């Protein structure tokens, strides 16, 4: 309990300090220290997890690398700060991290009261349910009477109560404070259903003793737009973080990949030329406070959005999450980049 009080007091204390730090130009700080300090998850397979040698990889981690590549031309100039759900906001407010790329849902409260800025959504998520195949459940509407494992103190817990009430279903909540405890309880069969963000379910399923025995139900009961967050009050830094995402999406739309980026520089298409900074007198990169090579550097470091998605959480990964809403706008999804002009 002491820790919780401490956290609360520290949160309150750093909120004040954060205001001062935010006024400094984050880009200059990052350039002078020589790396990006990136707040990531403590370990969620596919999004951010360290391997045995301590090398981080994942969808969110690639965003950290892309930001570093845009600034330094080198995707390895990142230092990672693993943060729990509770620690993440104080870490960003206090200036301990430069950017938070940690499965964080964009909500109005976080955008305003907590003093953060969100813009691009790099993963459109929603709360889902996972059950054992042996129960032969096809829809969440069949879950009446089930025991549901959920992490306490999350929006997930509230969405769950609302969903079951709205559909007039009975359930028995089994709540734990830590994600690991929820996993263990579900794996041990203490509950029939596990609910959290759907991407999280895909990731957590891999950690169960028999991943193939479980299915994720089709229903999505909430909107969870996840994206990188920065402190309010530094528009230049906010622009860089936002446009790194848009560059990744735009690269996919143009068909520019990690493999063909050098070749695409010779493209005749003026849009592609402008995007890759080979147009004469191009000022797009320098206006951002970066070099004209910024987009090329990003793509060289991590590939385009589609490649980042597939490699970490999509078809090319053990998670095998479908693109769904995260497909490009012209391919049935809602990922869309404003024009680079």
């Amino acid at each position, binding site marked *: *309990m002491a820790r919780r009080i401490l956290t609360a007091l520290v949160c309150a204390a750093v909120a004040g300090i954060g205001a001062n730090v935010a006024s400094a130009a984050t880009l200059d700080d990052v350039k002078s220290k020589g790396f990006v300090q990136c707040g990531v998850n403590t370990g969620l397979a596919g999004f951010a997890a360290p391997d045995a040698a301590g090398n981080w990889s994942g969808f969110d981690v690639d965003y950290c690398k892309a930001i570093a590549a845009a600034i330094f031309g080198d995707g390895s100039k990142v230092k990672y700060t693993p943060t729990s759900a509770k620690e993440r906001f104080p870490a960003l407010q206090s200036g301990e991290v430069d950017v938070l790329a940690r499965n964080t849902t964009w909500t109005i409260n976080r955008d305003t009261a907590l003093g953060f800025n969100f813009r691009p959504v790099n993963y459109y998520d929603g709360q889902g349910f996972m059950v054992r195949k042996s129960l032969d459940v096809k829809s969440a509407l069949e879950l009446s*009477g*089930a025991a549901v494992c959920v992490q306490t103190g999350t929006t997930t817990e*509230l969405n769950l109560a609302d969903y079951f009430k709205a559909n007039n279903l009975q359930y*028995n909540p089994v709540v734990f404070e830590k994600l690991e405890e929820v996993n263990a309880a579900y794996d*041990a069969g203490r509950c029939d259903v596990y609910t959290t963000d759907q991407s999280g379910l895909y990731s957590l399923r891999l950690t169960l003793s028999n991943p193939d025995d479980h299915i994720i139900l089709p229903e999505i009961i909430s909107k969870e737009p996840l994206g990188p967050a920065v402190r309010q009050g530094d528009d230049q830094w906010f622009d860089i973080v936002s446009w790194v995402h848009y560059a990744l999406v735009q690269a996919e739309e143009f068909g520019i990949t990690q493999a063909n980026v050098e070749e695409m520089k010779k493209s005749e298409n003026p849009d592609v030329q402008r995007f890759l900074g080979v147009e004469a007198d191009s000022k797009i990169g320098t206006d951002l406070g970066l070099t004209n090579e910024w987009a090329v550097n990003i793509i060289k470091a991590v590939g385009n959005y589609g490649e980042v998605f597939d490699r970490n959480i999509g078809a090319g990964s053990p998670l095998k999450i479908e693109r769904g809403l995260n497909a490009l706008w012209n391919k049935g999804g809602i990922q869309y980049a404003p024009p680079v002009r």
Partner: protein
Amino acid sequence: MAIGVTNAPEKRKSSGSILNDSHVRGLFYQALTVIILALLVYWIADNTIENLRRANIASGYGFLNSRAGFDVGQSLIAFSSDSTYGRALVVGFVNTLLVAITGIITATVIGFIVGIGRLSHNWIIAKLSLTYVEVFRNIPPLLVIFFWYSGVLSILPQPRDAITLPFNTFVSNRGLTFPKPIFEEGSQYTILALLIAVAASFVFARYARQRQMATGQRIPVLWPVLGLVIGLPVLTFLATGSPLSFDVPVEGRFNLVGGSVIGPEFLSLYLALSFYTAAFIAEIVRAGIRGVSKGQTEAAHALGIRPRLTTRLVVVPQAMRIIIPPLTSQYLNLTKNSSLAVAIGYADLVAVGGTILNQTGQSIEVVSIWLIVYLSLSLATSLFMNWYNARMALVER
């Protein structure tokens, strides 16, 4: 410092300078301590208020009337997501109280048995009791809870393969499911009959005792009382047409449906706290019995009192005087250790409060409620035990 002054002889004053006056020095240091303490409290309070203001966090207890929005798995009183945060805290408080009271009763029973077992002349019983005490006393309570939760209860079968016990009772990893009695019209007479029988038994026992005191004649008490307490309610029950039915658990799609459930979270916490605290109580009981002078037993034997009566009438009443004060501490420990429930997801006061704290951000208010509730619970236990201790104390004439 004040004590130093009273012991100080008169001659101190002769040294003249006020700086050397131990009385003045004492006052100075006491005043200094109070001022530093006051400044510290002021600084913390001021800092907190300032930080809350900066973080735009509204303080106050108004949030207790807002809709909670979450559900609680285990609740003795009606609760839904539409209930208020205040009611959620009451649910948590009742759950804490439940585990504390049942735990105290069980720990006392086990503790007395093991404590007396340690003094047994039977080698096996004495060594078993010794092992019990040493094992449970030397493991942190949290590990004992995990032992029961993860080691014992979670490896029980799934509800559809539940172990069936007599009377439609089932044991599974969802807990103990048993038929829920439903009291129908007329069942209040049975309860009334039971109350009458109990009251009558007390009167009868008192009469028998007074008669023995007055005349020396003993009337058998046990059998008439048993007959009264069992017989009268059973007769009433049959006479009113057996107004009782059971909601029997049946296998549903996911769980056993119907009946009453005691969840594995409660069971683990209850068993762990009982077993853990019982080890300490056993040692207290042993110390209490050992603390009664051997001469007392010998004197009783010399008067021709039989061994069993010696224990009951001579040793135990004196041992209780040694046992009760440390026993109170163990009861308080058990109540406070119940907050470890948060580790296994039992919805006690701390777990529910933690959820509310996360949802509302009202950390100071929730923490203050925790402090007040635990303080009140502990003080109430202490008061009761002090009253009991005073009753058991040696009556000096």
